[in-house]
């Protein structure tokens, strides 16, 4: 178990290769193989979690190999409280996703080998601590995604796929420039940890076009990540991609790929350029507000169930942004309010996990009804509750989790984000609490239109959610409930790391040249 992290990355890659060489018409064999691979990865992730020492906020299970010495590129992996939960989430969702995509009929082999490749890319991004490696994995995700949306998606799939691809590539090119900037300013290395300790001094006073280089880089990198989150002006790829993608892929898209953005911002922008956090936090909070309100309003207006859920993701990530902005509360000029900073940052990180589980659940459930009715028009249903009570019950649970009902994990994280951001960005937070109402409004309204009222005659012989689908949803529901009732375990896991980040931000504030 020395290279447990490498295992996490390479098992799916090997799996992808194996699947690619399986006979192309042995569909079930392919399915079981990929289930086994993802399952194995999930197990390893769990083992990792058991071995992980939560009291230590720094990187653990580090692996470091020389790679391209001429450019000081090395193969560095590591995991800390920020990435570990994401890795677990990845393992779980990809495992579940295999079963969600069980009824994929077209070109099963291609689907699953791309699927596993995507898996590798995602885990790689979470684990890699070398910018070059990070960037490679970041881009490796794009190609499978392009095909998965473009070949197995809905009517507009080709457009959605290329749009997603161009959007993200645009962001990542800017990110690349930012990374190169860091590479040169911080003594020609791609080692993220090294850059982390050098950057604050190294970037001090460096000018690009008369602007502080640090700020330019901050923005460049931020845009790269913001497109993934997605933050307001860069969000239009999301509804399209979500709607067009096959269920499993929407699940992963919402469940994990959006988290890469938040993860990246915290890891790179916060970890490397903490000074600029103060400069940008206001904007961040504001963007959060816009995400919350804009996403909520758009969701309220949707008639396509999947699109509604997609916009709800935009709305939910807004809370995360708010929470992240709260870190600056720890700064001296904000009275060093450690409480708020902790609440905000942990809330943001927690929110990203919870949105992962909840939105995954939502997308799976939408997929279930789409399977049966072959449309997602909210007004086209009606009265399903009396026909399929179990499905209704679970959907109700998912919706209530989505609208941040206490007892579900979503509530805890949203509350933490709000409480954290409140002392610094009072008005913004007060405005964004409208989001709470919006959530309730769009979820309940949709729920009523789909499930309540007289049963739509078209669906009087709609069959109940089946075992496989239940198997995919139940675990998520359980997790959501568990963390809603007792968030302790999760928060203990991330606490130490959060404190490190907060300390860093708080510390630079003391000498920051703002």
């Amino acid at each position: 178990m020395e290279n447990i992290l490498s295992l996490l990355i390479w098992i799916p890659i090997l799996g992808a290769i194996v699947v690619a060489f399986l006979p192309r018409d042995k569909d079930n064999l392919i399915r079981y193989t990929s289930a086994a691979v993802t399952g194995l990865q999930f197990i390893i992730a769990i083992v990792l979690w058991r071995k992980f020492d939560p009291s230590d906020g720094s990187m653990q299970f580090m692996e470091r190999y020389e790679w391209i010495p001429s450019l000081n590129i090395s193969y560095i992996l590591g995991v800390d409280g920020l990435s570990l939960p994401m890795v677990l989430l990845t393992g779980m969702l990809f495992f579940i996703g295999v079963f969600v995509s069980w009824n994929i009929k077209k070109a099963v082999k291609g689907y699953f080998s791309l699927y596993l490749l995507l898996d590798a890319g995602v885990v790689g991004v979470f684990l890699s601590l070398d910018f070059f490696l990070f960037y490679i994995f970041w881009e490796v995700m794009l190609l499978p995604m392009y095909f998965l949306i473009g070949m197995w998606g809905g009517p507009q799939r080709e457009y959605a796929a290329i749009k997603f691809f161009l959007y993200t590539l645009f962001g990542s090119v800017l990110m690349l420039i930012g990374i190169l900037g860091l590479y040169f300013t911080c003594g020609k290395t791609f080692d993220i940890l090294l850059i982390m300790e050098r950057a604050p001094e190294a970037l001090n006073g460096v000018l690009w076009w008369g602007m502080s280089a640090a700020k330019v880089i901050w923005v460049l990198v931020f845009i790269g990540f913001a497109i993934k989150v997605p933050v307001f002006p860069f969000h239009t790829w999301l509804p399209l991609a979500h709607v067009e993608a096959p269920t499993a892929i929407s699940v992963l898209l919402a469940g994990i790929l959006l988290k890469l953005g938040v993860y990246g911002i915290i890891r790179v922008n916060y970890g490397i350029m903490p000074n600029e956090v103060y400069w940008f936090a206001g904007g961040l909070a504001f963007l959060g507000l816009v995400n919350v309100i804009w996403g909520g309003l758009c969701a309220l207006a949707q008639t396509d169930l999947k699109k509604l859920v997609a916009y709800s993701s935009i709305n939910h990530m807004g809370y995360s942004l708010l929470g992240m902005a709260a870190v600056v509360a720890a700064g001296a000029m904000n009275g060093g309010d450690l409480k708020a900073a902790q609440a905000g940052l942990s809330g943001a990180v927690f929110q990203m996990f919870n949105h992962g589980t909840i939105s995954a659940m939502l997308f799976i459930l939408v997929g279930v009804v789409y399977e049966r009715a072959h449309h997602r028009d909210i007004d086209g249903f009606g009265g399903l509750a009396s026909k399929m009570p179990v499905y209704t019950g679970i959907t109700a649970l998912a919706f209530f989790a989505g609208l941040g009902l206490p007892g579900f994990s979503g509530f805890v994280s949203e509350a933490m984000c709000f409480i954290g951001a409140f002392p610094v960005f009072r008005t913004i937070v007060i405005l964004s609490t409208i989001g709470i109402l919006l959530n309730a409004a769009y979820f309940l309204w949709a729920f009523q239109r789909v499930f309540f009222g007289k049963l739509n005659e078209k669906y009087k012989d709609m069959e109940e959610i089946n075992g496989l689908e239940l198997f995919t949803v139940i675990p998520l529901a359980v997790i959501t409930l568990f963390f809603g009732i007792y968030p302790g375990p999760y928060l203990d896991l991330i606490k130490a790391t959060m404190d490190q980040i907060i300390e860093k931000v708080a510390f630079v504030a003391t000498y920051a040249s703002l």
Partner: protein
Amino acid sequence: MTNLQSLEFFIPELILTITILAALITDLFVKKSKTNMIGWVLGVGLVVVGLSVHNLSSAPPTTLFLDMIVIDPFSSFMKIVIILSTLLVIVASWVNDELEKYRKGEYFTIMGIMVMGLFLMTSSVDIIMLYISIEVVSIMSFVLAAYLKLDTRSNEAGLKYVIYGAFSSGVMLFGLSIVYGLAGSTNYFAIQDTLSSLDGSANPALIMALLMIFAGFGYKISSVPFHFWTPDVYEGSPSTITAYLSVAPKAAGFAMIIRFFHQVFSDSIGLTSNSIGSTDLPWPEIIGVLAVVTMTMGNLVAIQQKSIKRMLAYSSIAHAGYMMLALPVLSMEAVESIMIYLFIYVFMNLGAFFIVIFVKNKTGGESFEDFEGLGWKMPIVGAFMTLFMLSLTGLPPTAGFVGKLYIFKTLVGAGSEFLWLVIAGGVNSVISLYYYFHVVKVMFLGGKRSDVITYPPSTMFGLMIFTAVPSLILGLYWNPLASWVKDSLVFYNQVM
């Protein structure tokens, strides 16, 4: 060094000459269907040449034939790149159905002669030699472009090429003559000396001259605004030749430009120190603008094409632009990045062209429609094509990304006054994604699952492997390449 002494350092070229003669002679004895044999001859010869070049590459840099040409690691590197691409193209020519109607004897022979010219281009340090080598290459490529005698498109390509080439080399020559007049010598080093001691009065003349010379260079690497011949010629000529033209002459051209700028204008510090003679022109900006325009133009027009061959032609213009990005910073790093990019570019571009050739052999066309559903009919070919497209776009983990990385790295490292070039480059690679992936889209997203799967014949398959593997592996581990390039970063520099 006197001529006689020089000979021992001229062995590769001598071997090459012998090979060419051998090819000519064998051509007399084989009958039409067997002319691939000449290809064998040339190929074997080139391998030997390559070995000897490799041997010489360790020799101390020096000038030959009374300061006509030099041999130094840099030129050796370029020569090896040229040999590699030539070998690949030779193999491809065996399986290119377009050529079946003709004897390939002259074809291969001329290719050999062209290699000779390219060698000289990479290593000439005298404007006479410069002009001669350029002309040799051009004339040979005219012939090759027009090789399909019965195909009017090929003829037309040849015609355009010849007139265009002759014209621009003429312009260049005129420029050279003025330089000669100003410097009073044809030798790079002498020219550099006098130019740097020149007073301001001669500026207009010098500027004129330099621009004219640059017209010649630009024509060779097909940079805007000297690129117009490229698409037509590329489309008209036989695909193998198109592939060849898009690689080898470009490499040689860049070698020539680098050497010229590096040894005439910059005292090996780089263009950034405004040391181009005594002209107070903002050379970095000029070349930068040209580079940006070149790649943008290439990309934008490429989007419009419906023939993949023509699309690749434009994309090759764009790639010339990417490489030119590094020219303004003529530091050693810049040269390094160009060399790496070139090396990678050879594989990915040839690979793409080979697949076009293969598809044309199969379907008889090279437009997007002919690629419809390719990924379903021949998954392997489709996969390879996807890989090449990725690499040409410059996405990790393919080699193309490494090339771009080096270029961008150079620019960012050179300071923020070059940042706009990086951003332009970045945006351009996003644009290029669009048309490169249109190919992928046509191959996979379009079309139906077919039950019969066709696999490429072994030769073609070998070619694909041979180009695909480097374009993937070099993206993950390019240490050997990097160190090799580093070692080859030695120019012969005469101190006067």
